């Protein structure tokens, strides 16, 4: 957050000699980066990856439609998983904060178990056992269970970070447990943890690409279909497809991250200065 601060404290304000040295380093590293980029460009061009025929397919409406369909499937899985994991997360967080020991123990066990399981294994297990005909639901169930457990931990730590006085004041006003939790603690917790929650949503979005491995026709799978069905004089356009799909994914994730950053900046401003450390 205060990277500007540290990056200036790690070295003195450069004098004339240091400036010259930094400039020399700068030129050297620029040369190194340029060499790296040129090497990448050269090997791509050498393999004919920049040939017009490689990129032509992206002008066809059928191919564009396929990418859009893939994108839509990705967003469907993401939307379902996001909503369901947040719901499950709130439920499990409420369970972990319960006054009843058995409820607490069960919620804690569920959270620990699903946080520790490899997501891919869960998705495959669901695909092979329950949702053999519907990879979408295998993917969404796996994503929901894993991310729900993580969101539960985030929400719980947010609730615990709300100052004790808030809950005590609410009890003093005669509110019941549920009222205190849902009208006093959770709104404040969600506000302070929103950047972290969105950060986890970015992970959810990225993990939808695991659907590729269970033949769910999401973005990456659509890309593979395009690449393996288009024959050009220079071979199949796997690299152009990877670049296009990668740009789409990075764009979506950066947009979500930007939203989180904006919310964080908004939350810091004004009366609500309390920020909790990211988990």
């Amino acid at each position, binding site marked *: 957050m205060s990277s500007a601060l540290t990056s200036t404290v*790690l070295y003195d304000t450069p004098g004339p000699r240091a400036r010259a040295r930094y400039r020399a380093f700068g030129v050297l590293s620029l040369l190194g980066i340029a060499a790296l980029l040129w090497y990448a460009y050269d090997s791509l061009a050498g393999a004919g990856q920049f040939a017009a025929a490689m990129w032509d397919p992206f002008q066809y409406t059928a191919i564009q439609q396929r990418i859009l369909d893939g994108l839509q499937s990705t967003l469907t899985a993401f939307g379902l998983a996001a909503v369901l994991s947040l719901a499950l997360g709130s439920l499990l967080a409420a369970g972990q904060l319960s006054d009843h020991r058995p409820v607490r123990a069960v919620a804690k066990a569920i959270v620990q178990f699903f946080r520790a399981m490899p997501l891919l294994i869960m998705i495959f297990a669901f695909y*092979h056992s329950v949702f053999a005909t519907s990879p979408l639901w295998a993917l969404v169930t796996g994503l929901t269970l894993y991310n729900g457990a993580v969101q539960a931990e985030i929400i719980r730590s947010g609730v615990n970070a709300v100052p004790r006085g808030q809950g005590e004041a609410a009890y003093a006003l005669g509110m019941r447990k549920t009222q205190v939790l849902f009208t006093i603690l959770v709104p404040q917790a969600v506000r302070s943890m929103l950047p972290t929650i969105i950060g986890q949503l970015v992970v959810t979005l990225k993990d939808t690409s695991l659907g590729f491995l269970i033949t769910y026709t999401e973005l990456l799978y659509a890309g593979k279909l395009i690449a393996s069905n288009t024959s050009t004089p220079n071979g199949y356009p796997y*690299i152009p497809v990877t670049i296009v799909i990668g740009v789409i994914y*990075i764009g979506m994730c950066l947009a979500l991250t930007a939203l989180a950053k904006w919310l964080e900046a908004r939350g810091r401003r004004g009366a609500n200065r309390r920020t909790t450390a990211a988990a």
Partner: protein
Amino acid sequence: MGILFEDGNFALFRAGFLQTVELSALSALLALLLGTLLAAFRVSPVPALRVFGTVWVNVFRNTPLTLLFFAVAFGLPRLDVHFSSFVFAVIALGSYTASFVCEVLRSGINTVPLGQAEAARSLGMNFGQTLGLIVLPQAARSVLGPMSSVFIALPRNSAVAGAFSVSELFSVQGTLTERGYNILSIFFWLAAAYLLVSAVVAVIFRLLETRLAVAR
């Protein structure tokens, strides 16, 4: 549940398990080295290196791991880069995890008190010495917690390699499924093995934390 101990399954399972451990360990090593280098780039006085580090982290942190594996497995051979699928997996997993290591280390650098770097500078240390001898060792100690979650996630992520023709633990699943065993018992043992790896990593970090934690 007893399928693990029937006709030669155990040897298959053990081979997959060892491959997973090897893959995770090598990727962890690559991620640690590359991540530290990137963190140094991101706080360095040279703008070109800072930009390089930032771009690397933003690209690799926002790319799904499956896409990275896809790019490495289908893309690199087309550029006449030919390695075994194991090496490809190490490259993909290592460079992906490196971006997370870099961000964790960088947040650790922010927790080191300003006086430390100032004292180092006033002793006449240059940037490399300040960072390498004074700041990074303290930063690494203070971020052992977040670092442990990065390295606990690594073996779990390595399961994706199994789908890209590395014969590790997860791909054992395919073989066993073909042999017609009960799905649930296969996944029971797989889950147990991955949980074991995660637990070992967690214990290692717990030990490191108790030995190295800084009392402030």
